[in-house]
């Protein structure tokens, strides 16, 4: 009899607990892995946003940027994600084609080297691709110079890695008609091609190559986190291809207000000030206190190269064929 007496009470408590949980709305942000680790921007951004939103911000990590797009395509309209964060402009055309995204509706003064007009994808950080080598050693001064030199580099595969795809676009933008020649001449400089950024960067640090395809901001990590100024990014005459990382609102979100609030939060100082020393990229809107000490030492390219998402998507398959043919000789 005791049990029956207490049963309604227990059930009532359980209901209360459920409804209390349900009152805290959940905002799901789907992003790439390195954003959500304890060394990435995720934890600080989660704390800052949750301080004011009366909500639960949940990150879902999914490999790298390309994996993020594949995951989104797999989930389709049924996705529970409210925000997708971490695609770059080489992927946004395919992302737009899914029809899953709604306009972001955020107006901001972006500190980007290019004008930003995309209505659906909101930039949250950016950087330049660059070859990173050791200070005081021989450097190449351009893609052409690198191709003619004996310097050894490690690059990433454009089929599985976003920096790898970035380099493919870099060569194609700098040499629209001669990309195949550049790749053919580069082939004896390329020690090997890795599937991801981590493998390539690890191999460079182990001394397998003179330089690795990474970002102009990579030396900032070594300088700020390790107090090591031995890494430099090579400045190339043709200019440097950019990576602009963007966030988008999922049209079918069940938390439209929260999603809008988060998009507005992205361009605020609280979000942007976390980026430089966690994601090791430039913030899309420079925060009031400026960039952290050390960033002023970084090489800044004179020319910024970037294809529109539509051009990048149109050129991609042809550029990949050139790349594969040239490097398979």
């Amino acid at each position, binding site marked *: 009899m005791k049990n029956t007496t207490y049963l309604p009470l227990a059930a009532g408590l359980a209901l209360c607990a459920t409804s209390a949980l349900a009152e805290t709305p959940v905002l799901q942000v789907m992003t790439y892995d390195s954003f959500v680790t304890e060394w990435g921007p995720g934890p600080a951004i989660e704390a800052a946003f949750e301080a004011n939103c009366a909500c639960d911000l949940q990150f879902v990590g999914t490999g790298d940027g390309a994996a993020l797009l594949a995951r989104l395509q797999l989930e389709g309209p049924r996705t529970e994600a409210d925000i997708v964060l971490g695609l770059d402009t080489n992927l946004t055309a395919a992302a737009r084609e899914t029809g899953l995204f709604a306009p972001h509706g955020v107006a901001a003064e972006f500190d980007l080297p290019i004008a930003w007009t995309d209505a659906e994808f909101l930039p949250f950080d950016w950087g330049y691709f660059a070859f990173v080598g050791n200070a005081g050693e021989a450097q190449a001064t351009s893609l052409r110079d690198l191709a003619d030199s004996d310097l050894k580099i490690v690059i990433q595969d454009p089929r599985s890695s976003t920096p790898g795809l970035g380099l493919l676009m870099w060569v194609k933008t700098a040499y629209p008609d001669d990309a195949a020649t550049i790749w053919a001449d580069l082939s004896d400089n390329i020690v090997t091609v890795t599937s991801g950024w981590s493998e390539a960067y690890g*191999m460079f640090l182990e001394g397998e*190559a003179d330089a690795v395809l990474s970002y102009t901001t990579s030396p900032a990590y070594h300088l700020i986190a390790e107090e090591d100024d031995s890494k430099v990014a090579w400045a190339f005459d043709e200019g440097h291809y950019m990576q602009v990382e963007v966030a988008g609102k999922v049209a079918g979100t069940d938390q439209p207000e929260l999603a809008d609030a988060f998009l507005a939060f992205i361009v605020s100082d609280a979000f942007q000030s976390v980026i430089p020393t966690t994601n090791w990229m430039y913030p899309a809107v420079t925060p009031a206190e400026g960039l952290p000490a050390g960033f002023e030492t970084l090489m800044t390219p004179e020319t910024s190269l970037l294809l529109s998402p539509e051009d990048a998507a149109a050129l991609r398959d042809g550029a990949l064929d050139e790349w594969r043919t040239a490097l398979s000789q």
Partner: protein
Amino acid sequence: MAHSLVPVTPRWPSVAAATLVLLLTIGTLGAVAWRAKWAGGLAPADWAAVRFTIVQALLSAAISVVLAIPVARALARRRFRGRQLLITLLGAPFLLPVIVAVLGLLAVFGRGGVLNDVLTSLGFSPVSIFGMHGVLLAHVFFNLPLAIRFILQGWLSIPSERFRLAATLNAPVGRLLEWPMLRVVLPGTFLVIFLICLTSFAVALTMGGGPRATTIELAIYQAVRFDFDLGKAALLACVQFGLCVGAAMLALRITADDVTGAGMDRVVQRWDVARAGIDYAWIIAAALFLLVPLGMVVLRGLPGIFDLPDTIWAAALRSITVAIGSAVLCVSMALALALRGGGLTAIVGVLPLAASGLVVGTGAFLIVFPFVRPADVALFVTLLVNATLALPFALRAIGPAAAQVNADYGRLGKSLGISGWAWVRLIVLPRMRKPLGFATGLAAALSMGDLGVIALFAGQAEETLPLAMYRLMGAYRMETAASAALLLLSLSLLLFWICDRGGRANADV
């Protein structure tokens, strides 16, 4: 089964095991194919990938097996201090995550590696490791340990009575005992390594030096991640399975029947142990090749091993839990299948080897996504997939012993009317402790090091140790990652050693 010569065991465990394997291999492929928009067939570049994959897998398997024979023979007939420890350590490369092993290999054979340091100091020009020879070197590094273990088991399974008899008759041991044993063991060993190399991706690309080293698995990767062409991914996965089934049938055809017969299970004492020098030369060469790169992994990881962040220890604990669960499931399935035997077991026992990791992960994701949050079942799915992926190895480790028990004691058991669980508990398990321990250790260690499907499913709270290690590397923390790799290596070996040891406790050898 009424006329079977072996005691009857219930049918359902083997059926359940086969069902799980088929679901996770063919089923996941089906899920991917079902979701695909069919655009077209395979391009010339895909066929080039198929050709490259087959050639490198054949060569890798051949070299691994040929080199493993003298090493296994040397280990089988020599007794020295630390022999057991050496055998355990020699298995380590097989258990390593790809990137860790590659960095270990590069520390020895790479541009700034030990080998080139020696070469240049002697006045020779340095050698480059990248190219087809690099792919083969890495695959042999990974798979030689496995070949040594399987062939060594074959040697140790020859009853000591046979050697004694051969010694009394002054008969040639090689032709009468060892060659027939190799005819039984080699085709299967070759097949397993061929299939492992068939699904290689990151190793082949990195060591192969560029896109000419594109394997089928990389083509699948491209189809899913770059082109989002699930139809092509499914087609390529079918090619992988087709190759697998074809190779398995071929191996089955040329595998000789076991003709050694029953023995009393005593320690092998060898009388034909002349030429100790050559044996030790093989053992030392294999140990150098396999252990120096491992030593590099240890050296790189040691400095930071005590400063690892708490999240790494939490991830390690999660990995151990999954590894133990997956090992228990894996060995139970292997035992059920091994005692049943038959053609289905032969196919089910190799199918997981040919499964594309990405297709399994993607298919599993498509299957669970409509029903639950993938992160909620991340560890459970990982446990199931890891158990399935380790099944071929466990089956190979315990299969011969199970067949032996059936052959040697089956009629006795049948005439005594023992069946079911009693047969397994009283006769089978005590007879098979050694291979069961080995199989459990292998399955646990493989699960520890496997990145597998977890990357597709896991959120922050479900991170396993290999995933945590990769994420460290992705955040520039190469040194911390190196320490996490060392922790992973140590835990894998420890798990393997405990299980392997447990199987040996109170046993004769």
